[in-house]
C-alpha cells in the first residue's frame, strides 16, 4: 500500500510543478469588505448634491437634481437592487466558489453570492459570448472572465439602470464594466472601471478591499428580505405621483455646500474634479 501512494504523490508533485499555467489564484471563500476607502460615501451615504470627483454629464447632474429621495417609497422602487458596479461598496458579505466540469475539471464559471439583496453573480469562464442586445438586462448583468496571470479580469454587459452615486446620480443601462479581482494572501482587491456613454464623459475607476473570513457566518447574515409595503398612505396613485423636483427648484441642494463650506463648482462634479490639478485650481482661488 505504501509504495503506490508515494509514487502517486510524486507524480502529482511533478504535475503541479510542470503546469504553471494552471496555478492561478483561487478566490474561493467568504470575503468581507473594509471601509477605509471612501467611507463617508459607503456607510453613512453620500450627501445630497455632492457629485465631487465623478466624471458625470450635464444630463446626469440634471437627473440627480430633479430626483426626490421619496421616489424610493414607490412600491416598485422599494426593493430595487444596487447594480453590480455599485453593490460592492456597501455593507455586504460575498461568498466565491468555482464551478468545474466534473468530467474534465475545467473551470466553467466563478460564482459569487452577495448577501445584500441576495444576488448571485455568474462569471462565465468557458469562453462563451455575451448574449444579444435584445435579451433582458439584470441588476448584476452578464459577465465573462479570464485570468491575466493571477488577476481575474471580468467584463460585464446587460446591466440595468442604477446609481453612479446613490444621491440620485444615474448610471444608464448602456454601461459596460471591467473588473479586476486581485488576491494577495487573505486580502482581495477589487477594481471596477465603469464606462457609461449616456451619463459619464470618462471611465469611472473605483476600488475596494476585502478580507477573507476564516469562519462561516450565521445563516441570517446571508439573507436580505424585501417585501414592498405602503409607505405613503395618502398617495393619490402612482400614476399621478412620481416624486420629483421641478428643474432648479430642489430646496435641499444647497445644504451640503453650506454645511461643508465647499464651492459649488467642486460639488457639481464633472471629469475635471477627478484630477489633482483641480485641487491646485481651487487653491489658487483662495
Amino acid at each position, binding site marked *: 500500500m505504501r509504495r503506490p501512494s508515494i509514487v502517486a504523490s510524486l507524480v502529482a508533485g511533478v504535475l503541479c510543478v510542470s503546469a504553471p499555467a494552471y496555478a492561478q489564484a483561487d478566490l474561493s471563500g467568504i470575503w468581507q469588505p473594509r471601509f477605509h476607502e471612501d467611507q463617508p460615501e459607503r456607510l453613512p451615504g453620500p450627501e445630497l448634491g455632492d457629485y465631487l470627483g465623478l466624471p458625470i454629464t450635464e444630463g446626469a447632474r*440634471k437627473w440627480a437634481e430633479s430626483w426626490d429621495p421619496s*421616489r424610493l417609497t*414607490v412600491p*416598485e422602487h422599494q426593493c430595487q437592487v444596487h447594480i453590480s458596479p455599485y453593490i460592492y461598496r456597501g455593507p455586504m458579505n460575498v461568498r466565491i466558489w468555482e464551478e468545474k466540469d466534473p468530467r474534465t475539471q475545467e473551470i466553467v464559471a466563478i460564482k459569487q453570492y452577495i448577501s445584500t439583496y441576495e444576488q448571485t453573480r455568474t462569471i462565465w469562464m468557458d469562453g462563451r459570448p455575451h448574449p444579444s442586445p*435584445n435579451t433582458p438586462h439584470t441588476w448584476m448583468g452578464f459577465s465573462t472572465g479570464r485570468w491575466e496571470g493571477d488577476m481575474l479580469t471580468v467584463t460585464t454587459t446587460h446591466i440595468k439602470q442604477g446609481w453612479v452615486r446613490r444621491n440620485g446620480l444615474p448610471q444608464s443601462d448602456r454601461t459596460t464594466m471591467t473588473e479586476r479581482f486581485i488576491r494577495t494572501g487573505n486580502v482581495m482587491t477589487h477594481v471596477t472601471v465603469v464606462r457609461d456613454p449616456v451619463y459619464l464623459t470618462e471611465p469611472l475607476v473605483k476600488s475596494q478591499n476585502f478580507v477573507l473570513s476564516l469562519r462561516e457566518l450565521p445563516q441570517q447574515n446571508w439573507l436580505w428580505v424585501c417585501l414592498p409595503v405602503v409607505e405613503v398612505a395618502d398617495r393619490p396613485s402612482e400614476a399621478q405621483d412620481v416624486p420629483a423636483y421641478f428643474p432648479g427648484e430642489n430646496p435641499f441642494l444647497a445644504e451640503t455646500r453650506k454645511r461643508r463650506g465647499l464651492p459649488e463648482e467642486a460639488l457639481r462634479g464633472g471629469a475635471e474634479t477627478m484630477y489633482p490639478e483641480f485641487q491646485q485650481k481651487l487653491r489658487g482661488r483662495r
Partner: protein
Amino acid sequence: MTRAYLALGLVALAGLAAAQQQNFDSVQIETVQVRPNIHMLVGAGSNVTVHTGEDGVLVVDTQFAPMSDKILAAVRALSDKPIRFVVNTHMHPDHIGGNERIASAGGTRAGGNVFGDIGNAARNRAEIVAHENVLKRLSFPGTATPAPQGAWPTVTFFGDQRDMLFNGEAVQMFHQPAAHTDGDILVFFRRSDVLSTGDVFVTTTYPYIDVAGGGHVNGIIAALNRIIGIAVPSNVEEGGTLIIPGHGRVTDEWEVVEYRDMVTIIRDRIQTMITRGMTIEQVKAARPTIDYDARFGADSGFWTTTMFVETVYRNLTAKS
C-alpha cells in the same frame, strides 16, 4: 390645434412610409427565446411575438410587408403547426405590414355551417385580431393610414378587453384608449406570464404619440401603469413577468417603472411650464427632457426630441 396635430402625425407617418421603402434584403431575423413556447422575432419594424403549441401558432404583429417571408421562415423553425391567429397591437405599417402574407400562410379552423366556398375562404387564412379602431383606421374611406383589404383585421372587438384560450393558455387583450394611437392593445399570455405591449412601451426612444391616430401622452402613461399593474416581479424587482416591447429588448417590470417615471416626470414638467404661462418655444428652450436625451432623444429621424416635446405640449393645451 387640430391642424398642427394632423401635420405632426402626417410627418411621422411619412417617416414610417419612408422606412417601408428601405431595402430589407440584408435584414436578418433574430429569434430570442422568452419562454419555451414564446419567442420574440427582431428584424425591421416591430418586434413579433410568436406563441406556439398544440393548437398552432399565434403571432403578435408582423413588421413591414417585405419581411414576411423571413418571418414565416423563422416561425416555421419554431413550429410546423398552422398559424391560426395574427394579433395586431395597433395599426401602424411597421406592425401590420406582413398581415396579408402571414395570414394567408395560415388557416382557421372552420366547419359546420361554414362550408363550400365560404368555408374554404375561411380555412385558407388565419384570423387577424385587433381592436375595432384598427380596422377603422386601415379601411375607412379617406383614412390617412389605408391598407390593402387583405391586411384588415377579420376579428375585432369594441370594449376594453377580449379573451381567448389558445394552446391551453389564456390570451388576454386589453385596450388602452388614446395612447400611442386609439387602437392600442396589450396582449397578455397569462399562463406563460409574458406581456406584449405594442408601442405604448419601447426601450429605444421617447414614446411616439400619433396624435392624428388618436394618441395622447396621458394615455401612454395610463398604459404604462396598466403594464406595471399586470406585471409581477420575482424577488427584489427582477424577473417574473417578462415584457416584449413594441421595439427594443425584452424587459421585466422594473424597466417599465423607470420608463413610466420618465414619461410622467416630463409630462409634469411641461404641465407646470404651461401653468406658468410659457409658450411652446419657451418650453423647448427650457429643455424639459435634458436628463433623458442622451438615452432616449434624437435630433433626426422620424421622432425627434423636439417633436416629442411639442406633441406633449399640444396634448396638454388642447381643448377636449
